[in-house]
């Protein structure tokens, strides 16, 4: 499915291009825009909880946050804006909108796109899968034997004592139980299989979406070039 969503880097390009267009609007209204820019961040996949022992040992149950290199250099915090400039920025944000660049991001609330629908269906199908159910049962039994409780029934998150040490300990024991139940990546793999099965039925539409994505990224790059961003950063 990743072919139909923006990659982390592409998302930075598109968002930065939109921001340039908004700032053009603000400057056209007579305001000066302070230097801006910086890196982005992305979270690891966490649908079925922690899936890597090294990540659990480092972060406990908190998803890994990766830094995505930005198109623009990091800048100091922007100075406070006047009320009039804030109003203008809000107005420009509304008028520019996405500037025709679609939001192709996994996990957006309320997204009714085909990709999202496929993922939603795959999640439901995965949760009905007998292998998934056996995996989940084995995992829960293993956790119970170690005295670890779920945050709530059906959740993949677990209760811990609150200290960082205990959070990491619980996350590591969670991984041990997943390993003992067939591997931490098993539910992710099952999900991917259900996604793949549905993709076959919608290949033509997905091909069109892939083209739309490529077109959007290319357009974003052109906007960035037009605003002086060097090709090496695109």
């Amino acid at each position, binding site marked *: 499915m990743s072919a139909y969503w923006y990659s982390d880097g592409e998302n930075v390009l598109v968002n930065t291009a939109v921001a340039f267009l908004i700032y053009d609007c603000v400057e056209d209204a007579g305001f000066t825009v302070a230097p801006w820019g910086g890196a982005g961040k992305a979270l690891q996949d966490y649908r079925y909880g922690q899936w890597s022992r090294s990540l659990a040992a480092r972060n406990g149950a908190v998803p890994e946050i990766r830094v995505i290199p930005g198109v623009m250099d990091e800048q100091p915090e922007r100075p406070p804006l006047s009320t009039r400039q804030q109003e203008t920025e809000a107005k420009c944000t509304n008028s520019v909108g996405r500037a025709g660049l679609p939001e192709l991001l996994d996990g957006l609330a309320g997204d009714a796109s085909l990709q999202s629908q496929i993922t939603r269906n795959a999640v439901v199908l995965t949760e009905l899968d007998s292998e998934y159910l056996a995996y989940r049962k084995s995992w829960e039994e293993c956790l119970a034997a170690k005295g670890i409780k779920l945050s709530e029934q059906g959740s993949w998150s677990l209760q811990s004592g609150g200290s960082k040490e205990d959070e990491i300990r619980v996350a590591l024991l969670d991984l041990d139980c997943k390993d003992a139940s067939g591997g931490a990546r098993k539910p992710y793999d099952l999900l991917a299989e259900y996604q793949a099965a549905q993709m076959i*039925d919608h290949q033509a539409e997905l091909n069109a979406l892939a083209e739309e994505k490529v077109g959007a990224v290319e357009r974003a790059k052109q906007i960035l070039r037009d605003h002086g961003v060097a090709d090496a950063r695109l």
Partner: protein
Amino acid sequence: MQDSDSLLVERGMRRVPRWWLVPAALLVVLTGLGGAYWAGTSTTAGSEPAPPLAAVVPVSATVERRAVAEQVVLSGKVVPGAQATLHASPAAGVDRLVVTGVAKEAGSRVVSGELLAVVSGRPLLLLPSSVPLYRDISPSDSGPDVKALQEVLAGFGYPCATTGTFDRATQQALASWYRAAGFKAPVPLPQEEAGDAASKNSPDVMFRWREFVQVPGDSGTVASIAGPGSILAEDGVVARIRIADDSFVARADVVQAESFVVGTPVTVRAGSTVLDTAVVQVSGFLEGDQGKNEVPGKDVTVALPPGAQGFAAGQSVTMAAGAAVAESLAVPLIAIRQDGGIPYLLIEGNGEPRRLEVKVTAQVDGWAAIADVDGLVVGDQVKLQ
């Protein structure tokens, strides 16, 4: 999860409203790959009939006989033991510090009471660290340093009562120590003399703190020492004493650390060198350092017995704890299938794969140990998932 982390995660997962694009251009926070939100919402999504799964290329593995050991292995290093640096300092009238004799050499064991070296003609004696060294002591002086010195001299076997005053008996005991080391104890300069020296049978003796050095723990091994004729630098370093043995140290995550309590037997390996030793210390919880690729956890210190060969300071080692297990039938973990909580294997033959229920006795590093069972032998091919 802590509050700040929760907020961070939620922010990362939330859709970015459009008015946010201006500050978002600064932060460019990606909603990215996360699915916690989905995990919560997707159960309410409509379902469709289950489509056929994508075709999977069958892959198999061979049943082996191997030890699936329940061992926890850490990566660590040889850490050099702590050293104490011993300094000489020039006495009045000494222009520079020159080593005029050494009583010890690198590798020698040193203990309190011994002579370490001779600098600019005067001895450097090893004084127990219980004596606070902060002044010269003249006859009739008193104080906690005098009392501690008296206890030390008595401990060395030089008769001396613990009066707290640098009396005649103490001076004689000190003189005896100097004599045993081959030197005469220093005497007070005329202006330092208490009372009328001429009226005494023997001259007063005094304690000059610059003629003593102390080693934490009162013993150690000479790591290095300046040779005879050496002119010491301004810092006056005359010797370095190793006061703790080298050791192995590894960072264990909090669960791994539970297998390394103090006293646990540990097998240390560096290349082909193997050493059986034990855990001597486990630290409290320590934060990690991502820059050093160091996870949060506990530092496990394992003893490196003096004289053990094949381990140099800084060398990488592995430290394994836990009992080795006898060999058994074993298959890759991904060959284990489950049906209603019962594990089974699919064994390939000429026709359809044969299903065989098995008992998994251990799982380590991607391998599962299988209890002996009829119908499964080494060399059988089992299907992987």
